């Protein structure tokens, strides 16, 4: 007689890291590096698909695991890019590795951006600092599926020009006419030809049709604080404001409890939340 648990124990082990090799290491700005990985198992690599806004758990042998947003777009297959800031043990250990070294990766996890619902709408992408990492995935996804969306606007703020992530890429995009790419820094230097000031200043540069727009916001708490205020003032529905939340995580699959906020687990119910959901979670940002 088959036990009721039979199918359960035969499902794939959700904690199993897959070996992946570092293909390329691209320093972006100080203590922020873009790592490109390829899974060792080619078949797995081909089948690995994800949504912008999802994340993976990255393992370094003998050191541990940590969650990192996927920075590449699912439209570009065969590799995976993670933009990692050096913050502690695991990220430090990653920085010690060289091209061709092995790591473990499992995922993708999290809900990701609701890209289907966002189709045929305007996209307003707002990033602050490292928040650009997941936003880049959505940005490239939108550019690669450009006809699915109406206007695409990127607002990205960094502390100073030396902290602007993916600057080369963004410079190229700036010259495209199917996207409005607005970059700002808090403190400009002489070579900076973008805007100066906080990211909310950029709202002056665009006309928004709130009802027909999804806003995707990612950045440090201070960015949320001011951007949310501005979006609400512009008449955005709380359900059209999407934000990526960060919480301590261990398992990434809704079991270990570390990321729980109220009745939600950031790892499976998020990390992308509508502002409405996030508001109700009490512990917000």
């Amino acid at each position, binding site marked *: *007689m088959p*036990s009721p*648990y*039979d199918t*359960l*124990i*035969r*499902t794939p*082990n*959700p*904690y*199993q*890291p*897959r*070996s992946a090799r570092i293909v390329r290491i691209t320093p972006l700005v100080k203590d922020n590096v873009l790592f490109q990985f390829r899974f*060792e198992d080619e078949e797995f690599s081909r089948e690995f698909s994800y949504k912008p806004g999802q994340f993976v758990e990255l*393992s370094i*042998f*003998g*050191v*541990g*695991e940590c969650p990192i947003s996927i920075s590449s777009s699912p439209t570009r297959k065969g590799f995976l890019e993670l933009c990692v800031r050096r*913050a*502690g043990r695991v*990220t430090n250990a990653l920085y010690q590795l060289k091209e061709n070294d*092995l790591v*473990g990766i499992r995922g993708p996890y999290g809900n990701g951006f609701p890209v289907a619902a966002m189709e045929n709408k305007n996209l307003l992408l707002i990033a602050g600092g490292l928040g650009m990492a997941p936003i880049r995935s959505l940005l490239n996804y939108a550019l690669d599926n450009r006809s699915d969306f109406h206007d695409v606007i990127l607002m990205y703020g960094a502390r100073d020009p030396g902290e602007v992530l993916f600057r080369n890429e963004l410079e190229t995009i700036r010259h495209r006419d199917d996207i409005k790419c607005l970059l700002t820094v808090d403190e400009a230097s002489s070579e900076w030809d973008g805007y100066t000031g906080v990211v909310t200043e950029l709202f002056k540069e665009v006309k928004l049709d709130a009802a027909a727009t999804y806003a995707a916001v990612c950045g440090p708490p201070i960015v949320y604080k001011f951007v949310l205020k501005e979006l609400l003032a512009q008449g955005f529905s709380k359900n059209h404001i999407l934000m990526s939340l*960060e*919480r*301590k995580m*261990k*398992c990434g*699959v*809704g*079991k*270990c*409890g*570390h990321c*729980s*906020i*109220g*009745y*939600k687990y950031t790892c*499976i119910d998020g990390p992308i939340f509508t502002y409405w959901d996030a508001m109700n979670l*009490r*512990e917000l940002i």
Partner: protein
Amino acid sequence: MKVLTLSKKNATPFFEALKSFGKTYGPVEKGEKAYSFQPVESFSQLALDYKRTILPLKKFFYKPCQPVFHFNKDSGYQPAEEDLEEKIVLFGVHPCDINALNILDLVNSGPYVDNYYFVKRQNNLIIGISCMPDELCFCRSMSTDFAETGFDLFLSDIGDSYVVRVGTGIGDDMVNAVPDLFSPIDEESSRAYKDSSNERSAMFQRYIELSDLPEIMDLEFHSELWEKLGERCLACGSCSMICPTCNCYNIIDKLNLDQKTGERIRQWDSCLFKDFAEVSGGHNFRSKRASRVQQRYLHKQQGFVEQYGRPSCVGCGRCTMVCPAKIDIVEILHTIRGERNHRRRKSDRRR
């Protein structure tokens, strides 16, 4: 459901017959009024009048500290082998603990299945036993004083014999292994069962009212009660360890001296600990002890309800029993609800 009776005289031969189904564990006395599920060789070793064991049954499904992967820098992560063959029989499990396992089943299934848990789960056979509540039990309020599913056999004590409910096909196999020991249920047993059930109902001393509790917890989010509890709580983690439904864990990688191989270990964790929600750089989403104590109650009595439609508490009374700071969940909920004279209320709520 098939229902039989087993005379207590036949309990020993029945117990012996169970050995062919796996290694038998049951409640044994560990110290004065302290019990633990341990390997048991004979029926007489069992302390079947126990109230609650120190650790609940989760210890059989998640070890407090268990390797989940072995790794080798050249070949990657290999899942730690689980022994698929070793069957164990848990004899003498109370309804609250059975219901707690049903809750853990929920948590461990869903879109991501924790196979480690279910491998162990599938290798367990559960024989429940009825119990009488003591001054800490409030399972009746949590609707966990009776197990509807989650056991292979359930024995209800009716004096000289047990009424035996057969819950699964394997339970039926157990009965059929020694069919002569069982008799069909008769009117007398049925009456005795109802009498003892009524007697038991009258014995509950503690109640909490569940209706609109999540709502009230929300209203009391800023109650000063949490601050007071935060001062008293030692953050010793005991309540999480002994809770039959607390399942938070930490993951730790251990590297061997050879710098190449090692283990990934999973260890029980508690939301009461300072670093539970602390992220790198030192930001802590719950830096105050008060907010951590609150989290434990909010998650169990509010968050879990919204997620799974019921609280993740089975009213076993363990946390009240072990808390060195005498923090008492029932009292907390009464305070939150603003109830007075709660001991006299006997709202006997079932789903």
